[in-house]
């Protein structure tokens, strides 16, 4: 997901239009009211939509759920549980990998996948 200089509402609206959905149609597909969606698109809500709603929006728009949820200012639902499952390791892992370049992160992810495969 790019457009980092734009707000979540602006990006949401642009993606919805690009997919050819009217405000009302998209609201219906993601099960919110058009008035609420309009407020979200204009960044006039006190807090971002729930993760469940953001996931639905990402699915309808064909976006990555993780990126969409994070961009909206929420944390993907499963992450707190994962971190809390190994509080001695996951916080350290995140802090250590913070600042790595995207291709280095990709390499780490691939390595981790291989390690998991071997264990299976």
């Amino acid at each position: 997901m790019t457009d980092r200089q734009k707000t979540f509402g602006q990006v949401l609206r642009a993606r919805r239009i690009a997919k050819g959905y009217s405000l009302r149609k998209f609201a219906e597909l993601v099960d919110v009211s058009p008035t609420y969606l309009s407020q979200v698109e204009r960044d006039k809500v006190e807090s971002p939509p729930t993760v469940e709603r953001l996931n639905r929006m990402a699915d309808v728009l064909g976006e990555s759920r993780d990126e969409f949820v994070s961009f909206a200012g929420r944390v993907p639902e499963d992450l707190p549980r994962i971190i809390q499952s190994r509080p001695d390791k996951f916080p350290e892992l995140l802090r250590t990998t913070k600042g790595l370049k995207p291709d280095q992160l990709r390499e780490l992810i691939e390595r981790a996948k291989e390690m998991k495969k071997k264990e299976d």
Partner: protein
Amino acid sequence: MARTSSTLLRDGVPFLREKQMEAEAQLLLEEYAQAHDWRIAAPVPVEEIIELHLKLAFAIEDLRALLSVDDVLGAIWFTEKEVRVDVRLDPSANPSSLSRYRFTLAHEAGHWRLHRQYYQEDRNQGKLFDGRGQPAFICRSSMKPPAEWQADFFAGCMLMPRNVVRSAWQDWRGNLDPVAVQQLPAVTISTDSKENENATLERFCRSLAGQFEVSAEAMRIRLENPRFLLREVPNTLF
């Protein structure tokens, strides 16, 4: 839209012939049909035309609070390319407002297509009738100055295109013969005969209105021009 040599009315828009406005509405539908692989039919996808074709930013907002106007339905900001409809028309909260919601959107499309150029000219000449941040037109249910009447007429033509109305009438009635109010079971709602006539005609055309997703009132007005609905039985009818 081609500008004609015409007298500017008080609110900065010229007199426009009904034929001109209908042609402009038809042109807009044809543009959208061509660009989006759509065949002109009912109901007209007015929301998509506003957002996807005219590329106007659309929002639903509490306009009554924003503009301090009690009976506001919608508003258009030309400079910002924005259309907003009052929150009370949101059809998801109030399904009976769907026809008014759609008509308000078509009405704003009318302002965009019929009046934008005059606004721009006034702006260029420093004769602005609104400033940046203020809507060019605030559309209310009670006040109908000429520009508002024109936008209403445009909306009727856009939501109920002449040829589609004709086909729908033919399918419904089995012919293209007009119907006069005297041929219908009378509806009495007041002591005013004009109001009773309107109510009679509107009850008659309610099912057609549903097909076009417009109000029975809008359908009745459209069916009176072209003359499918008549106030008097013409001599040639029987």
